[in-house]
């Protein structure tokens, strides 16, 4: 509990730093809130005075006119204040949201890949989008509501006590009742809502599973069981949903009832005082209108508190992201441009988690222009090598040197611009084909881009797209096949052709004939360049200068094709299995 309090305190402090630069606006907002509440409460007083000018049959009391004019003027001023206040609040809210989002996004670009690989992307997205929204709504709206609520209550009490102490007491005495009931109901419904959202979550994941994989359900004629499973949850959900909905919807009727009790009470005492001549009818009407709306701020406040807690929880999630350690920048001591392609790994050790050792004391020396093939069964950790070379992850021990320079002594930017990378997971950004290919070289001319596309055999299919090179691809744009995407990724690297290449030969989703084309593109690129290839294809493996055989994250064998075959180890086994036959 104590701990929780501390973290929320820390969160509040962080929130304040964001709001700080808008403190003038915030001050205006608070001032306007204060003024408009006072004016809102002042109007019933004027109305009461006006009603007192109406006594009975006879001449109309002309002094009523200034009062009525005052009502209208005050209403105008109040409304104006309210509007300005709302606008300011909007401005603060949206601006803070914008600031936080920008900062979060910047962090995403600088955070170590370790974090991005480990977290679900959906979760990060929901922090940047949903949590920030929730936080802004809850915190800033909650804050103003809380503030106006408190001011309303205090001012109402002040007004009431100034008109008639005893009736004010009636109201004050009945107040806790309403608070108590509201608290009771919200406490009770909190659990019901929690249960409802849990059950809802259960149902959603069942639906995702069964509808999402409807083909399997059908293939195993599992429909009946699926329906039963669904109905069971559905029944439970309906039950707890009914409870949650019903109990939560009691708040309004009950507070309305308490309101009317207060109203009646004010009517009763007010009338007795009026008979005694201690209260005018106008004052009574003013009291009645206060009594009519006084529970509102109370209910709002109890609602606001839960909302504030929720908002703080959301804020904490966003801040957790923003405060993640960025990638460690090591001191840059030299620059590296157009490397010759000499790569040395000296005593490299690395693991993702300390308990599970992966690469240990690994040495490799690559001469410029050499071809390194990385082979091994699926999931053996071939991407680890890529992660280390590109410095997506840092080695635990030892060093990786390019042209004799430790990669930690040059900036990441310098390092990465010496590498060209084509991964199996083809990623393209939303935008035109042209923009995607020129990613590595934004100032490339159209001719250069088309040439790169031709070299990577992508030109032919691009030509056939509705808008050629200007076709927009991505979420809402034209959809490309996996093979086509791969070709574009190759064209992207082809355009800038850095001295060292990292290629992941993707095979599983591409048909063999497209594969041949990709293969051609690859070999075209590799000419005269140091290249690291995650290899699936025999030809690549055989022609490689060095073959690294990986298994379970470790490099278990290293050598060229002939020496490895001669060793008759894992590699030989793997290689021969490709020719295994059913008869054998």
């Amino acid at each position, binding site marked *: 509990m104590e701990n929780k309090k501390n973290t929320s305190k820390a969160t509040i402090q962080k929130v304040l730093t964001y709001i700080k630069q808008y403190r003038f606006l915030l001050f205006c907002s608070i001032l306007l809130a204060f003024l408009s509440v006072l004016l809102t409460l002042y*109007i019933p007083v004027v109305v009461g005075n006006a*009603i007192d000018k*109406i006594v*009975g049959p006879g001449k109309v009391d002309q002094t*009523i006119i200034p009062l009525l004019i005052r*009502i209208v003027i005050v*209403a105008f001023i109040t409304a*104006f204040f*309210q509007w300005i206040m*709302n606008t300011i609040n*909007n401005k603060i809210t*949206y*601006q803070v949201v*914008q600031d936080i989002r*920008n900062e979060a*996004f910047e962090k*995403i*670009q*600088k955070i170590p890949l370790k974090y991005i690989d480990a977290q679900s992307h959906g979760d990060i997205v929901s922090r940047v*989008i949903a949590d920030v929204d929730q936080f802004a709504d809850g915190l800033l709206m909650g804050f103003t509501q809380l503030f106006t609520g408190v001011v309303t209550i205090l001012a109402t009490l002040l007004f009431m006590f100034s008109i008639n102490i005893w009736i004010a007491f009636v109201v004050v005495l009945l107040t806790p009742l309403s608070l108590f009931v509201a608290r009771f109901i919200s406490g009770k419904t909190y659990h019901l809502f929690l249960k409802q959202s849990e059950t809802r979550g259960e*149902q959603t994941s069942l*639906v*995702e*599973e069964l509808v*999402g994989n*409807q*083909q*399997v*359900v*059908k*293939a*195993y004629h*599992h*429909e009946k069981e699926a329906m039963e499973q669904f109905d069971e949850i*559905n029944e439970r959900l309906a039950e707890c949903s*009914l409870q949650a*909905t*019903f109990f939560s*919807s009691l708040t309004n*009727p009950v507070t*309305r009832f308490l309101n*009317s*009790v207060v*109203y009646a*009470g004010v*009517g*009763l005492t007010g*009338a007795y005082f009026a*008979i005694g001549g201690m209260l005018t009818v106008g004052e009574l009407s003013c009291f009645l209108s206060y009594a009519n709306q006084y529970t509102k701020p109370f209910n709002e406040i109890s609602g606001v508190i839960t909302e504030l807690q929720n908002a703080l929880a959301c804020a904490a999630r966003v801040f957790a992201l923003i405060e993640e350690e960025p990638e460690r920048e090591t001191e840059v001591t030299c620059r590296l441009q157009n490397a010759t392609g000499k790569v040395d790994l000296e005593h490299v050790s690395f693991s993702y988690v300390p308990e599970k050792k992966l690469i240990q004391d690994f040495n490799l020396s690559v001469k410029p222009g050499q071809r390194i093939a990385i082979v091994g069964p*699926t999931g053996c950790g071939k991407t680890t090598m890529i992660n280390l070379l590109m410095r997506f992850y840092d080695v635990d021990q030892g060093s990786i040197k390019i042209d004799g320079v430790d990669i930690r002594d040059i900036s990441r930017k310098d390092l*990465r611009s010496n590498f060209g*990378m084509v*991964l199996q997971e083809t*990623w393209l950004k939303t935008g035109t084909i042209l923009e995607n290919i020129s990613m590595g070289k934004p100032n490339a001319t159209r001719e250069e881009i088309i040439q790169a596309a031709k070299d990577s055999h992508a030109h032919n299919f691009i030509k056939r797209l509705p808008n050629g090179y200007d076709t927009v691809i991505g979420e809402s744009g034209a959809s490309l096949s996996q093979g086509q995407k791969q070709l574009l990724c190759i064209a992207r690297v082809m355009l800038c052709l850095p001295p060292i290449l990292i290629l992941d030969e993707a095979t599983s989703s591409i*048909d*063999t004939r*497209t594969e*041949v084309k990709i293969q051609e593109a690859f070999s075209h690129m590799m000419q005269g360049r140091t290249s690291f290839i995650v290899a699936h294809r025999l030809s690549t493996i055989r022609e490689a200068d060095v073959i690294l055989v990986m298994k379970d994250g470790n490099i278990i064998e290293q050598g060229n094709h002939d020496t490895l075959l001669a060793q008759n180890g894992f590699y030989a086994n793997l290689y021969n299995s*490709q020719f*295994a036959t059913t008869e054998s």
Partner: protein
Amino acid sequence: MKKLLVYLKNYKKESLLGPFFKLVEVIFELMVPIVMASLIDKGIGMHDREYILKMFATLILFGVCGLAASISAQYFAAKAATGFAKEVKHALFEHIQTLSFAEMDKLGVSSLITRMTSDMNQVQTGVNITLRLLLRSPFVVFGAMIMAFTIDVQAALIFVVTIPVLFIVIFGIMLFCIPKYRKVQEKLDRVLSTTRENLEGTRVIRAFCKEEEEIKIFGLYNEDLTNIQKKVGCISALMNPVTYIIINIAIAILIWNGAIRVAAGVLTQGAVVALYNYMSQILVELIKLANLIISITKTIACGNRIQSVFETSSDMEEGRETAGKSKNESMVEFRNVSMQYQGGGEAALENISFAAKPGQVIGIIGGTGSGKSSLVNLIPRFYEATEGEVLVDGENVKSYTYAALRTKVSTCLQKAVLFHGTIRENLLWGKKDATDAELWEALSIAQAKDVVESKDGGLDYMIEQGGKNLSGGQKQRLTIARALVQDADVLILDDSSSALDYATDAALRIALAKMEKKMTIFMVSQRTSSIQHADCILVLEDGKLVGKGKHEELLESCDVYKEIYYSQFKKEAMENGK
């Protein structure tokens, strides 16, 4: 949305009683100002303490009655709404199960899931609020006006003018804002998709050193969103202040008019107070009504989306046959089969004919999009052949019941899918009453025995949703095992070994060949090594059957096959003593 309302029929009583009790509550509420007026006029005016007490008691009594009525209303509304949602969801789920693969493709799985979950929640809330409030707000507004008429016609005319003006202002602002909100949503979506895109492409972005540029682009999108939000906020923030002004002007006029009428002896002071109270009530309710209408529009939109699922119905008809002819020469036969996907221009399969005998292994190979999967999907009738006939065990697939056909034909789909539950539960999908021995047998053929043995609890190992705690290769082997458990006559392996390394793939093929029961196996693959020993290989290109025969024959006669084969093996295959 309209058609969905049918599902309220079991809750007719509730959905009528809800609004009814709400109405009762409103009536009690509307009586309050009148009682108060007479308390003021008679009680205070005549100094009648007893009368005041009586009126006080009446007010409390009205309050209690109102409370009872509104609690009942809330209960019935909640009951009707949740019950309604339950029935719609049940019907929807049932309906989705009857849809064929073609219709599922058309609707899209993710959109079906949203309709079933978030759309449904919105509809439930919408129905609940509508039952509770839709009658309440107009009732209070018009009720207050009617009550005003009973007090004084001339004063009531002020209401007659004020209410429409308020309506115009509130709905004018709403109409202006709703389309703008849609734009806000679009801009928000763009911010969201940029974030997601950047997370997915981190490696590429960093490899190309694009971080700064991406930050700049995001900043622009983000600013764009903020600007439009501010603009809309500015207008929608007008709602409360403007209505506040109107109401207060009306009150001022009301009192002025009251003063004249009281002076003329037509009205009492208490009546003026009552009119003032009614005017205040209207404001609160109108704003509620505006929110209610926003909620209803949303609900209707969601309801329509759900309804459109119901309107998509399966065009396949289920047969009645439960057994095949079993003495048949061929287990699976295609006779001049062509097939076209809905909305897909060209035919996915064209004029395919072949026959597979019991126990034969049929290999299917071809480039991406050549129709391999389409072909095997016709066997368990996941899709319907547009022309020609598909026969299983001598009977047209159309004449079987789905259950009978899919018990005969076991399919291991391209995408390895496992469900939340134990390994055993997952394997039992194939055959509900399979023994553990049968399961182990299937696991060992599928090369998945060591996978299960390496897990805590073996068969009782809990698989997370989507099989997240298994690797791709492990999942694939388990799905093959599941298909084997079914013990069917026909087994389809649709590229099911793509995530397996060559060694495991080979071991699987050997184990399948050694199985006692001779199933007809269809093996779809990209790798020639996987299928080259099949009894018959079907070579597909652009939906046409361009080669049919054994490996050696095809190497001689089929250019496409030759090309595929050499692209994977080059000359090495030759050198390796083939």
